[in-house]
């Protein structure tokens, strides 16, 4: 069944259309920056963008930073929200279960297909970012400081360590893994909602509403009590991979909180789906 779901994922036009859009945005941004050579000054605008003018191999991480706030959660919510509800709408859910595909097996297969989509999307964005970045920008040496990155020519006053290409690759991989994990939390919420309703759009919008609520609360000082437990709280902690030394504290917390969200919502999805009357 896992194979069947992966085949369905790959043969679906929507999969590729969404990944194409995800890769298009960073490419457009890269072209603008390369043409004008005007990048946001350090500390302003999307993270890392100021540094990529000096070194294009950083662009994969910058590309992910661009799609992380909106594009990526929307794409992941749509795909995960469609997982069960989409089958219900198309009427295939009853035929799959009558084949029979066990309900737990179907849910696991859907989960794996969603994970494959999330990781595939994140990796493809990073790869596209590398191609455009290395092609359009230079590869001047960079310093990595406790406050983030700086081009070596402007940041002479800061005490920093020069980054080697291998160093950049390792840090980028870390950021890819962290952002992938953050999206898995989103996927788990959408998957759970997908088992509740027969409308895939409803499930996707529900997951997005949860994320927006979480985003608002994180920014709200009076909600500081709950903010450490919100799914979007540590989303931006991936940037800590680009400090020296790497700030592990928020990265670890981010991984942990996403792990908790995945376990809780997948368990809830399973409990609901395994006992649900299929009337679609």
């Amino acid at each position, binding site marked *: 069944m896992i194979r069947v779901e992966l085949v369905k994922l790959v043969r679906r036009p929507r999969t590729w259309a969404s990944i194409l859009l995800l890769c298009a945005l960073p490419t457009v941004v890269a072209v603008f920056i390369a043409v004008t050579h005007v990048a946001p000054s350090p500390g302003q605008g999307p993270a890392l963008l100021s540094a990529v003018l000096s070194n294009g191999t950083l662009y994969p991480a910058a590309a992910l930073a661009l799609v992380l706030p909106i594009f990526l959660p929307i794409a992941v919510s749509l795909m995960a929200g469609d997982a069960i509800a989409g089958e219900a709408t*198309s009427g295939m859910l009853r*035929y799959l279960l009558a084949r029979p595909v066990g309900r737990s097996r179907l849910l696991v297969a859907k989960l794996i297909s969603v994970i494959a989509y999330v990781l595939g999307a994140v990796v493809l964005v990073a790869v596209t970012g590398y191609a455009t970045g290395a092609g359009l920008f230079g590869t001047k040496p960079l310093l990595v400081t406790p406050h983030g990155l700086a081009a070596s020519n402007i940041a002479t006053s800061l005490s920093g360590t020069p980054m080697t290409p291998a160093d950049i690759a390792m840090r980028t991989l870390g950021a890819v893994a962290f952002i992938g994990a953050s999206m898995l939390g989103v996927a788990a919420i959408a998957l759970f909602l997908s088992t509740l309703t027969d409308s895939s759009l409803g499930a996707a919008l529900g997951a997005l509403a949860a994320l927006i609520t979480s985003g608002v609360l994180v920014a709200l000082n009076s909600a500081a009590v709950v903010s450490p437990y919100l799914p979007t709280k540590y989303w931006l902690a991936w940037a800590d991979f680009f400090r020296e030394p790497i700030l592990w504290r928020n990265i670890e917390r981010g991984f942990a909180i996403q792990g908790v969200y995945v376990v809780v919502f997948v368990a809830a999805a399973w409990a609901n789906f395994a006992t649900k009357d299929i009337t679609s």
Partner: protein
Amino acid sequence: MIVTRGLAKRFGSVLAVDHVDLDVREGDRFGFLGPNGSGKTTVIRMLLGLVFATSGEIEVLGRPIPARVREVLPKVGALVEGPSAYGHLSGRANLALIDAAGRAGGRRTRRRRVDEALEQVGLAGIDGRPVRKYSLGMRQRLGLAAALLRAPRLLVLDEPTNGLDPQGIREIRDLLVRLNEAGTTVFLSSHQLAEVEQLCTRVGIVDRGRLILQAELSTLRPVTGRVIVRSPDADRAAAELDGQVASRDGDQLVVTGTDPAALTTRLVTAGLRVIEIRPERSSLEDLVLELTGPGTDRIDRGAGQPGNHPSPAAGDVP
């Protein structure tokens, strides 16, 4: 093949299925009849483990449902509430995916199984067009093909001839009879009472969630005591049988108070020609209309409940 005991299903405050005791035997061609909203589809969904019963027991192929669906369903082919398919894929790709789902029936023989199923339903020459471009009849045939993959022992079909033209209906009926003669038990629901009459050996009739009748079709169509005669000399025959002719339609007379043998002798002695003579039987349609109320899709003004029970036309019952 299918046994239910006291099967009931409640959706919120609505009792959709109420104490149904079905008994479908091996080799039956069982017709499951009833108005819209009478609970037919809910029963079918419970047989397939899609909907969980509120109370009662289900056995399919001798095993309890839903506890042992994994053993039972691979031997059951189903069509529930219309065919479904992935619109962007071809019919063949859809069947291959369905065949691969669940405990796969072996990859090497998949192509052959798909081809055989398509052949059986008359789609052997199908091309790579995506299913969203199919006509209603083609989708129906594709749905049947999906049910026939892996040669099931039991076919559970909800309205199998929906959307088909008369030739298509005939083809599918012949196919079902052939499969049945080869040992497949057929359980089908239908509104097409004439269809069921031609195809089924046994019927069950549900109304408002209750199984109100379950019997051999032959015992359900009793002779009415009247005789139907067709004769080119219908005018003279009507005069000859004056007082005994209940109704007349062209060259066809319905005659009371006699039997076919006596009537034949009498007409022939009078020098009249006879084309056809047979005892009248009440039709399945009459019986179903007599036993069941209107479907839940009929909402009459003023009443919170479905409309009044239509009484059978007075002239139909002797």
